[in-house]
């Protein structure tokens, strides 16, 4: 009896089995609906009309950037808030190597936690095509923005953002080591053969004539791409078919392999250096005589305790069958297609391209400014002499081949490149295999 009464009591004070099942079923159904709602992912931005500047914009924004630039945290954000009245609720930096996957996860969840995100050539193509970046109206693009820098935030004729700095690789050499090896310290190797000869002279005593950052996927790709362009080759033909396994491509990879394996002028650590910052350090420490690197190499090399300005040579990259060529590394900001504060976000994008911010970018970070007028401004060129090299380099092709399939193709291609560098396959076989794989990947996007 006591047992029975207990049961009765409990059935009054607790939900019945039916209601418990209903509650459970409701939760599962809600979870299922959440899952199904993911099906519409990727359509938001594609149907969005291009964003034009608003006469007034207020509210607040949140920004997710890579960890390249310190100037935003150290003053630009505060000045932006003061000048525009827009509050920057959060300015967050993340490691570049981690940012892609973080952004992809945010976007695919249609997350609006960040209004502004960092972008560059590959992501503008990938995320832009997926409909995750807000297209911008041409009226939103400030006058005089460098075409190469604008390319890095655009894809297929659509502008998805505005650049925060321009960048291209140039050649840096250690004048002290040149002098020590009996080479003219102020004369840049003008051709690839000159470069290889100099590198041979410079190698010895724990110093290598040349070093590169080929230790991860993108590093292996960009080092190959640079030699490919210097050899007059191209990644894709006019129909987007892989062309990197052409004779020029095979010759380019063969030359890269020879630097490491035959001529032994490339530092063996090149195959495990996973970012350009480590290459900056290697060069600044005098362990590599020549590097092909981004502009940020310069402030590191001339910093106190490093080589010093008088010991750093800088020039355009030495060509093989063309005079010169380079790869683009410009970065910018784009607006999250799911943002609720797009007008205010656009104000940030435009603010970053203004002259005061760009001058600060040049002076404190060493990156190139994004407008043609600033490239020629005396205050800029006197502070960052390598800007004049960029102007020379700009006469020749500067490419990156950003595409929606960039990361997929680069993964396959870099595996082939590294395998060839290790001597485990021939350059031709490595590139032919990668080209077949790339064709299959690209076919999925049509």
């Amino acid at each position, binding site marked *: 009896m006591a047992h029975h009464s207990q049961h009765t009591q409990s059935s009054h004070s607790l939900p019945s089995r039916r209601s418990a099942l209903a509650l459970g079923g409701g939760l599962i159904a809600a979870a299922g609906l959440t899952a199904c709602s993911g099906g519409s992912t990727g359509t938001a931005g594609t149907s969005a009309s291009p964003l034009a500047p608003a006469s007034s914009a207020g509210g607040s924004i949140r920004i997710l950037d890579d960890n390249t630039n310190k100037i935003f945290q150290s003053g630009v954000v505060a000045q932006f808030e003061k000048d525009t009245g827009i509050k920057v609720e959060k300015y967050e930096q993340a490691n570049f190597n981690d940012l892609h996957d973080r952004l992809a996860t945010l976007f695919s969840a249609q997350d609006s936690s960040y209004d502004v995100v960092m972008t560059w050539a590959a992501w503008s193509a990938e995320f832009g095509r997926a409909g995750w970046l807000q297209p911008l109206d041409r009226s939103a693009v400030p006058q005089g923005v460098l075409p190469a820098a604008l390319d890095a935030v655009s894809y297929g004729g659509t502008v998805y953002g505005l650049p925060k700095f321009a960048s291209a690789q140039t050649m840096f050499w250690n004048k002290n080591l040149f002098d020590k090896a009996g080479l003219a310290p102020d004369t840049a190797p003008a051709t690839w053969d000159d470069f290889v000869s100099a590198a041979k002279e410079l190698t010895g005593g724990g110093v290598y004539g040349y070093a590169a950052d080929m230790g991860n996927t993108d590093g292996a790709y960009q080092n190959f791409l640079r030699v490919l362009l210097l050899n007059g080759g191209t990644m894709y033909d006019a129909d987007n078919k892989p062309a990197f396994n052409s004779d020029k491509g095979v010759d380019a990879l063969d030359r890269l392999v020879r630097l490491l394996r035959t001529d032994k002028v490339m530092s063996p650590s090149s195959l*495990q250096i996973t970012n350009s910052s480590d290459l900056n350090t290697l060069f600044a420490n005098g362990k590599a005589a020549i590097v092909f690197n981004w502009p940020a190499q310069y402030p590191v090399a001339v910093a106190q305790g490093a080589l010093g300005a008088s010991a750093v040579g800088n020039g355009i990259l030495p060509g093989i069958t063309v005079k010169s060529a380079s790869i683009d590394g410009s970065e910018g900001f784009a607006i999250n297609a799911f943002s609720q504060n797009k007008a205010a976000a656009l104000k940030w994008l435009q603010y970053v391209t203004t002259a005061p911010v760009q001058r600060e970018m040049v002076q404190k970070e060493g990156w190139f400014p994004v407008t043609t007028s600033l490239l020629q401004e005396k205050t800029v060129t006197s502070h960052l002499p390598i800007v004049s090299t960029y102007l020379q380099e700009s006469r020749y092709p500067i490419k990156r081949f950003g595409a929606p399939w960039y990361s997929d193709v680069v993964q396959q291609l870099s595996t082939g490149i590294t395998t060839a560098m290790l001597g485990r396959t021939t350059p031709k076989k490595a590139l032919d295999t990668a080209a077949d794989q790339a064709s299959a990947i690209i076919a999925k996007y049509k």
Partner: protein
Amino acid sequence: MPATTLTTPSRPHAPTAPGGGRLRRGRAERGDRRFNLLLMAPAVLVVLALFAYPIGYAGWLSLHQWNDKISPVHPYTGTDNYHQLFTDPAYREALNRTVYFSVITVLAGVALAIGLAVLLTQQFRFRALARVLLLVPWAVPPVVNGIMWHLIFDGDTGIANTVLRGLGIIDGNKQWLSSPTSAMNVLIFAEMWKLLPFLTLLFIAALQSVPANLYRAASIDGAGAIRRFAFITLPSIRTTILFALIVQSMWSLKVFDTIYVLTGGSGGPAGGTTTVNFFAYLTTFSNLDRGYGAAIAISIMALVLLIAVFWMLLFRAPSWFVARGIGRRGPGGLGPRRRTA
């Protein structure tokens, strides 16, 4: 002695009580069951939300073409993603690497941990300090572990080269992380260093529960250290070995953070450290192919289950043979004795 007749044991009858007591008891039992179910409901819902739903969702995702970079439409593709597993050389290579990694880390890891545990249960000076030092690798966060080994095995400035050169094992600096084979071996080394403390502690605890009089009796019978280890220690910690093998197998299939940090997020060089789990990550998050990535994840789950079942069957097998009188069981042999009465 009368012959006994074997009969199928019948379910005990429920006691009857006058006045329909059996019926009331039946209702009460049902009520009990409902009440118990109700109490369990929150836990069941949590399990459903945290385990069943993600697994079910992954299963559902794996039946679709779901790559936002290619199309915003995600059609049902049946088992296409699973077929791709069998034809994709990248998956096959990742699986081979995983097998290589797992076999070494599981077998060598467990063997080393047993050895260390036996050593640390002996009486010697500074034993307490040695046990404390054993915990150090376990206290290091996985990401820090990866960074640390990356620095140690750096080809130019790493201490590994300095030590090995000093010992005369290598002539010049070796670029450990630039070749797929040596990078994989560095990964194995780093993972073993991280996993050994847990496994060793597990075995120390198991060894402490082995009655000391067994060893004393064996010594009196003339058994040496090896025989005592083989016929007393190993059988006594058999269930712990099984647990360690299963847990370590699962961890080896799931290894991720050390690879990520050691290789700059690429699983390189030349994909040399891309295990199945890392391949699933690259497919899902770098290539955004969530359908295929989910199929890979499901295959990992199946592998975990298969391996767990394999170890359980393997550990059950000797008892099964012994129970059927298969195999020699001599004096001092391992396993249950033959019944004599």
